[in-house]
């Protein structure tokens, strides 16, 4: 008779796996990826390809050089590469994509111990790094499917006091990072993630609502508040970056606090500072505060005694 397997309980499993979660994130990003190619043309494919391949090769090489177990099979590197790419504009040359992605994968993720150990979101940190190291990463490029008279991003236009067509904002027919503009595609991805129970609604909804409410309170202008949430990287940030498991609090309560903080910081940067966009910075700052939020919002165990 064959040998019986002896292992610790439980002997059944929900079937959830890290690979499946990462795959779900990739599937959820698919509409935004397709939209980016439709709106910005084949140039966006160059950005995406450069980032994704660099992410995979970078992590694979790091694992080989440091003699670690190969981890590229868990798709998390692909997620990082794709997310970073979707946060860049077609104006970014491929070599900058490569350097930015290497920074994200090697310095932010692998050097901290790989998946699960990094304290900051690799894609966000990569983007902020590129913002500082190179010229503007989000602006300057126009959609190829519509003729626009301006090359300014909607946030820059809003900053100058111009008004924008909400439908254009919703469909993403304006300048910006390739994956951030089409809100429709991002919402489809959001719904998919909710259905697959990869994330809960709390973080994205609280994040976006906070920005909306603060703009409404400070300007009293509903159109302005709506334009502000639809423009820039708020949706992609709230749905895909602020919900990153590794770099955000582990409890729902903590995640709500995290999202609130992100919303407030985004608003402060956009409204009070010279810099037009604040989503990346807000998430990065809250990433750093995550251990403290987690401590403050820890659940009281049932029957626990202090």
């Amino acid at each position, binding site marked *: *008779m*064959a040998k*019986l*397997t*002896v*292992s*610790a*309980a*439980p*002997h*059944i*499993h*929900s079937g*959830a*796996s*890290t690979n*499946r*979660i990462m795959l779900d994130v990739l599937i959820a990003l698919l509409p935004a990826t397709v939209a980016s190619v439709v709106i910005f043309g084949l140039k966006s494919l160059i950005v995406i390809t450069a980032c994704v391949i660099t992410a995979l090769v970078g992590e694979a090489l790091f694992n080989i050089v440091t003699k670690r177990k190969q981890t590229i099979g*868990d798709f*998390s590197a692909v997620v990082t590469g794709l997310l970073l790419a979707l946060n860049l504009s077609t104006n970014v040359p491929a070599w900058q994509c490569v350097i930015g992605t290497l920074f994200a994968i090697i310095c932010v993720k692998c050097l901290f111990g*790989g*998946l*699960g*150990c990094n304290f900051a979101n690799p894609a966000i940190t990569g983007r902020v790094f590129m913002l500082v190291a190179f010229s503007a990463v989000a602006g300057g490029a126009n959609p190829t499917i519509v003729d626009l008279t301006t090359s300014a991003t909607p946030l820059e236009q809003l900053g100058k006091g111009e008004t924008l067509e909400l439908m254009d904002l919703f469909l993403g027919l304006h300048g910006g990072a390739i994956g951030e503009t089409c809100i429709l595609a991002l919402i489809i991805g959001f719904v998919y993630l909710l259905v697959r129970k990869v994330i809960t609604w709390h973080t994205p909804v609280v994040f976006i609502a906070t920005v909306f409410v603060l703009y409404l309170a400070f300007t009293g202008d509903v159109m302005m508040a709506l334009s502000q949430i639809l423009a820039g990287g708020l949706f992609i940030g709230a749905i895909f970056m602020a919900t990153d*498991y*590794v770099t*955000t609090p*582990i*409890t*729902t309560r903590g995640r709500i606090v995290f999202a609130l903080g992100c919303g407030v910081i985004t608003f402060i940067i956009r409204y009070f500072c010279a810099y037009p966009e604040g989503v990346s910075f807000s998430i990065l700052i809250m990433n750093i505060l995550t251990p403290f939020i987690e401590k403050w919002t*820890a*659940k*009281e*165990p*049932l*029957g*626990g*005694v202090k």
Partner: protein
Amino acid sequence: MQFRKNISTLKVHHNKHTAGCKPIRVAPPKEVLLPMNMHSGSPAEPIVAVGDYVRVGQLIAKPGEGMSCPVHATVSGTVSAIEPMKQADGRSALTIKIESDGKMEQDPNLKPPVFDDVDGFLAAVKDSGVVGLGGAAFPLWGKLDAIRKNQIDTVLVNAAECEPYITSDTRMMVDHTDLVVKGVHLLHKWMNAKKVVICIEDNKQEAIDKLREALAGEDWAEIFILPAIYPQGAKQVLLYNVTGQVVKGGQRMASLGVIIINVSSTAKMAQYMETGMPLVDRIVTIDGSAVKEPKNLIAPIGTPISYLVEQAGGLSCEPGKVLIGGPMLGAAVASMDEPSKKATNSLLFLTEKEAKIYEPTACIRCGRCVANCPVSLNPAALARAMESENEDVRFAKLQEFSVGQCIECACCSYVCPAHKPLMESNKQGKRFVKKYKAEHAEGGK
């Protein structure tokens, strides 16, 4: 209105294929193996010798020191060996082997116990050899002994049977409603309880109906219907969902005036009081994908697993894993020669594919373990604490995250996408805390 926090639970597939299967009594096995540690506490001590002829129900091992339980012969025949035998958990236990003569002759000296006070009742419960039959295997008398120090207001009869597959408690309630009811009356009387509550999941309608009918008119008896979710039958969860009370760290449940007794234990206790026949057999659910036909059997305790599955109609394929108990908390056995024991409520035979072991990967902090923990622990943080090399740091972290409150229900391990053995890690964490405390208590003095 009382505000009550909702306890996190899981929806697992019930797989109660055998709920409608009336238990079938198996033909006497050729031999039975009776380990002396079928209960928690100290092992029983054999009082028979190799070569002795024993009959069904005859005392063959007396209780050991302190918390312990007697063992009775479960077949008639000759004691063929008394020797240590290796068990599923790797430990070895003294085991009495009886070669059956196939007659199942009853011990003629058996008679219902006579008593007129609580001490007499407790002594009789001890003599019955009954333990927690839901899997816990804690001697029943030990639990009821709480009456000596505590006022017991409520007895909860645990009939949740929340583990998938298992239906032995269900069948006990449906086929032996009278015994359950008699047991409930005994508990009410001797525990001097204001209320006896039968706690049962809503997927056992037949049992609910039968018990309702049998207990109609008893205002102290209540049937509490719970949603069928896992781990409804875990002590802390059941207590909270039924009474709203919580056992605090370091506290005993009895100090709250509540004890929880498994429903089959209740019935088996009543059977002993009625007939004088101690615990010698029980209902065992035989199920799993590798079994031809899932069934419920009534088998002498100590019957080898291989014999039971054969009696149930055999296997449809080579099993990859064999479990004593349910799929969430059951123990995998190394060999089918092992016997079923007092607390064996089911035997599950899983296919090779179901037995596949996944290599744990890195925690991605997805929070599923936290969201699904019935007692609101942070299993991810506890697992990280266990990785601390420094013992003082490990101890402090485990205490900070209240490892002692873990109810070992395995929900965390079940949902973990990284396949981390979180419950196992918590069990080790508890052992470590105990050891650390003991060492430092000595060192301090």
